[in-house]
C-alpha cells in the first residue's frame, strides 16, 4: 500500500490494470445484459418488469459499497496521511452519487408498475435518498475548501461521521413505516429468489463492480494529472 503512495508508481500500475478492468467490464456487461434481459425467465407475478431488478439491485449495492469504500479510504487518508487514499475517496464520491441516483431512478420506474406510484415514502427509498444527500454534501465540501490538503482532511471527517450515521439513519427510517420488500438475497438462511434470477443478478453486480473500479482508476489518474498541471502552471508563473 505504501509503495503506491508514489503517484508515478500508481500511474504505472493503473496503466497496466486499466485495460484488464475495462475489458472485464465490457465482457461482464455483455454476458450479464444478455442473460438478464433475454436469457432469464420473466417473473411469474411481475412479468418482464422484474428485469429492472438487474439494474436496480446492483446499483443499490454499489451505492452502499461506494460509501463504505469512500469512508475507508478517508480513514486511511486521515490517519496515515496517504495522499492517494484522499484522491480515491474524492474520486469515489461522484461515482457513488451516480449509482445512488441510478438506484433511485430505476427504483422509481420499477415502483410505478408494482406499487402504482413513481415515489413512495418508504423506509428504504428514503434512506437511499438521504445517502444521496450525504454524497452531495461530501462533494460540496470538497468544492468549497480551496486548499487541497485541508479539503481532503475535512471531507474525510465528514465521510467518517456519515458512515457512522448511515446505519442509524437506516434503522430509524426502517422503524418508521415500510413497503419495500425485505432483503431477499443476502440472508442467513440463503436467498429466497430462484437461481434462474440469481445468476444474472450476480453477473450484473460483478459487472457494476468492475465498472466502478475502471472509472475510479480513470478518475484518479485524471486527478493526479490535474495536480501536476497545476504545479507546472504555478512553477511557470514563479519564473
Amino acid at each position, binding site marked *: 500500500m505504501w509503495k503506491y503512495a508514489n503517484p508515478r508508481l500508481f500511474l504505472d500500475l493503473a496503466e497496466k490494470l486499466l485495460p484488464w478492468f475495462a475489458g472485464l467490464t465490457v465482457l461482464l456487461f455483455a454476458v450479464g445484459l444478455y442473460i438478464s434481459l433475454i436469457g432469464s425467465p420473466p417473473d411469474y407475478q411481475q412479468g418482464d418488469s422484474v428485469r429492472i431488478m438487474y439494474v436496480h439491485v446492483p446499483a443499490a449495492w454499489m451505492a452502499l459499497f461506494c460509501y463504505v469504500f469512500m469512508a475507508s479510504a478517508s480513514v486511511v487518508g*486521515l490517519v496515515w496521511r496517504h495522499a492517494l487514499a484522499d484522491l480515491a475517496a474524492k474520486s469515489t464520491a461522484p461515482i457513488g452519487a451516480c449509482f445512488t441516483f441510478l438506484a433511485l431512478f430505476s427504483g422509481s420506474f420499477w415502483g410505478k408498475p408494482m406499487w402504482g406510484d413513481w415515489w413512495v415514502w418508504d423506509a428504504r427509498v428514503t434512506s437511499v435518498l*438521504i445517502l444521496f*444527500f*450525504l454524497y*452531495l*454534501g461530501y462533494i*460540496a*465540501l470538497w468544492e*468549497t*475548501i480551496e486548499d487541497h490538503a*485541508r479539503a481532503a*482532511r*475535512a471531507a474525510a*471527517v*465528514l465521510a*467518517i*461521521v*456519515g458512515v*457512522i*450515521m448511515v446505519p*442509524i*439513519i437506516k434503522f*430509524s*427510517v426502517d*422503524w*418508521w413505516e415500510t413497503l419495500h420488500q425485505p432483503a431477499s438475497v443476502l440472508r442467513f438462511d440463503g436467498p429466497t429468489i430462484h437461481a434462474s434470477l440469481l445468476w444474472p443478478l450476480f453477473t450484473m453486480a460483478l459487472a457494476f463492480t468492475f465498472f466502478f473500479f475502471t472509472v475510479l482508476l480513470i478518475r484518479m489518474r485524471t486527478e493526479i494529472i490535474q495536480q501536476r498541471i497545476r504545479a507546472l502552471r504555478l512553477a511557470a508563473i514563479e519564473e
Partner: protein
Amino acid sequence: MNLLQAIILRDLRIAYRQGSSAMLGVGFFALVVTMVPLGVGPERDVLLRIAPGILWIGAALSSLISLDRLFHADAEDGSLDLLLSLPLPLELVVLAKTIAHWISSILPLILISPFLAMMLGLPADAIGGLAIALLIGSPAFSLLGAIGAALTINTRRGGLLLTILVLPLYIPTLIFGVQSVGAGPGAGTDAITANLMLLTAITLISAVLSAWSAAAALRINAN
C-alpha cells in the same frame, strides 16, 4: 471544570449581550410554525396530526440559524486560536461551546413550544410529552450541528453548506422525536418510553461523535 464553566459562561454572555440572536431564533421558530397552518389550511384534525412534526422541523431549522456563528465568530476575531491553545482537550471545548449554544438558542424554543403546540391544538398530555422529547432530543441538534459548523468555518457561504451537511444527520432525531410525542391518543406509554430511550441514545451517540469530529475539523481548519 472551571475552564469549562468559563467557556460556557463566556458564550452565554456573548449571546445575551448581542441580544438579537436568541430572540431571532425564537422569532424564526414561531414564524415557521405560523406558516404551516396558512399553507395547509386551518382544519383542526390535520393540524393535530402534523403538529409534532411541524414543531420538530421548526426547532431543527431554527437551530441551524445560530450554528453558523458557533465557531465562525471565534475564528474571525482570533479567539479560536486561544481556545485551541487552552490546557484543555479541544473535545471538551467543543462540548462546552455546544452546551452554551443549546442553552442560548434551543432552550428558548423549547420554552415557547408549549404555547405553539397549544395553538396547533395538541392536547395537554401531548404538550408535556413534546417538551420532554424536545429537552432530550434537541441537544443532538446542537451537537451534530457543531460538526458542520467546525467543517465550514473557512468556507465562503458556509451557512448554506452547513445546512446541506447537517440536515441529513438530523433525520434520526426528527423521526424518534416526532414518534415519541405519540401523535394522539392511539400510542401507548410503552411506545413513547421506547422512543424517548432511543432519542436519549441518539443524543449520547451524537455527543461522542461531535466531540471527536468537530475537534478534528477545528484542528484541520485552524490556520
